């Protein structure tokens, strides 16, 4: 009985953790190269989910196509935003970049809520059915989310930590002038990276649409938890963000059994503990 309950909550935690990992990885990538805390990450996630819903209801575009179109759409918007807004601010104190993305998030969330209301909109799962595991019923779609997020996280980690392209990215973070002297267009790389991070957020949004309801506030709610996760993992550390994301999802699941009232607070308790124990992050980057 308790083992069943535990296994069930661990599985749910793993699903939540999949989203935490994807979102905090995107944040860590953007922060790592640009030193900007992307407050619009939640809004970009929400727009991804809304785009999937909008495409389905207005044009009958299926989920699988939206999984490609929505991230590209959001990435394009984000790259425009980087060129027009973030780049002119990049020479100033980094807090202006943070505040600019916060302002964008306020505007985007406000406009969507004004147009579509605050209540959640259901999005039908593209994969029907599931499997009885003995301790719980697992819909195939949720399994797909877990597998897809693990593949995406590992793939991205590999891309950045183990390939030539990733080496340029990491080098540009350390010494942009020197990387430029090798003939690499660093500003273009920054634009593309921001687009990539935002696209990851939108991809998570599309993934989330059938599980959580599509609503204007879905982004800002998860955002603050993801911030805490990035702080625990160590800012800019990609592996730290991924591992902490999954781990905290699981911890949240276990807390739901032990102390249900504390489930939405446990992440912050962990953050406090991590700051005490390891002030530089669990996996300090570089």
């Amino acid at each position, binding site marked *: 009985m308790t083992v069943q309950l535990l296994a069930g909550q661990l599985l749910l935690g793993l699903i939540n953790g999949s989203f935490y990992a994807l979102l905090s990885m995107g944040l860590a990538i953007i922060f790592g190269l640009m030193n900007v805390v992307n407050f619009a990450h939640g809004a970009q996630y929400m727009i991804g989910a809304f785009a999937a819903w909008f495409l389905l209801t207005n044009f009958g575009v299926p989920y699988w196509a939206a999984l490609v179109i929505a991230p590209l759409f959001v990435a394009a918007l984000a790259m425009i935003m980087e060129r027009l807004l973030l780049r002119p601010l990049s020479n100033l104190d980094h807090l202006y970049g*943070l505040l600019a993305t916060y302002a964008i998030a306020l505007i985007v969330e406000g406009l969507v809520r004004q147009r579509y209301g605050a209540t959640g909109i259901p999005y039908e799962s593209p994969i029907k059915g599931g499997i009885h595991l003995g301790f719980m019923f697992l819909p195939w779609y949720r399994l797909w989310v877990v597998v897809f997020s693990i593949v995406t996280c590992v793939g991205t980690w590999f891309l950045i930590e183990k390939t030539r392209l990733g080496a340029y990215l990491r080098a540009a973070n350390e010494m942009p002038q020197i990387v430029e002297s090798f003939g690499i267009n660093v500003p273009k790389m920054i634009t593309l990276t921001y687009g990539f991070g935002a696209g990851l957020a939108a991809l998570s949004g599309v993934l989330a649409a059938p599980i959580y309801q599509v609503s204007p506030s879905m982004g800002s709610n998860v955002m603050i938890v993801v911030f805490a996760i990035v702080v625990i993992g160590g800012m800019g550390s990609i592996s730290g963000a991924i591992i902490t994301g999954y781990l905290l999802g699981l911890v949240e699941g276990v807390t739901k059994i032990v102390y249900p009232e504390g489930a939405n607070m446990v992440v912050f308790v962990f953050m406090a503990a991590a700051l005490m124990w390891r002030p530089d992050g669990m996996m300090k980057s570089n």
Partner: protein
Amino acid sequence: MNKTLLIAAVALVAALIAPIYIYPVLLMTILCFAIFASSFNLLLGYAGLLSFGHAMFFGTSAYITGYLLKSSSISLELALIGGMLVSTVMAALVGLLAIRRAGIQFAMITLAFSQFVYFVLLQARFTGGENGMQGIPRNALFGVIDVKDSFHFYYVVLAVSALALFLFYRIVNSPFGEILRAIKDKEPRVESLGMKPEQFKYLAFILSASLAGLAGALKATVFQFATLTDASWPISGEVILMTLLGGLGTLSGPMFGAAIVVILNDELSGLGEWALIAQGVILLVVIVFFRRGFVGEIAALLAKWKKPAAKAEAEAAA
């Protein structure tokens, strides 16, 4: 110095006669947020620390003050001090951890802690959860002076605000304030002079939180209710907007910013989400075009007109 005094005197006279013409509750709201924005300004404008969780001090203090007034016959000023004390202690704890991470992470950590406090307040029994705390009485000031009428109460709020803003002025113009500014400009230099920047930042954080607590405590007595909104992150964002709009690191800027945003919210309150959207747009415009804010830009204009020698004076007047 004389100019500052003159401006302060004119502002005080205007504030004294204002409630004859303007609804006192609106004026009191502006005063509360002027204190709140000044508290935030102390931290970002002088110490260079961006707190994205100042609502935790504002909201918690509002609840504590409300609870004290509701559950006992404590006099009003003690209830305000009670709220302030709790937010001060809270800042001492949060600051201990948040100061450990430099720069931009401070914003994320304070935001996360403030969300934690939000959930605690949501679940604590005394706060009334989602419904908030209603019907907070305005007990007599010093146990004798009746302040139930909003017109009379306005003068109490004005006196407290004037005191708080004077305190703020003294802090930023003290040697302590100078060191904070030095830390903001060049932290390693301050460290090389044998001082510990961390300790100064920590103290600034605590001072800022107690001022924010005072603002929240006053707010609870003005509106006679406290809700979860007071402790939610949009309030933390609002106080950032007020300070930047008015002028970061200027004395009077955040007060102007508070007045403009409070009036804007009041005007747009019936228009659904547009109040929030307008806030976002204003914040964006300020960040991109007017980073010195309202007062800062005016001071810069004045300095341009006058001889360069008068430049310092104009900046001091702001």
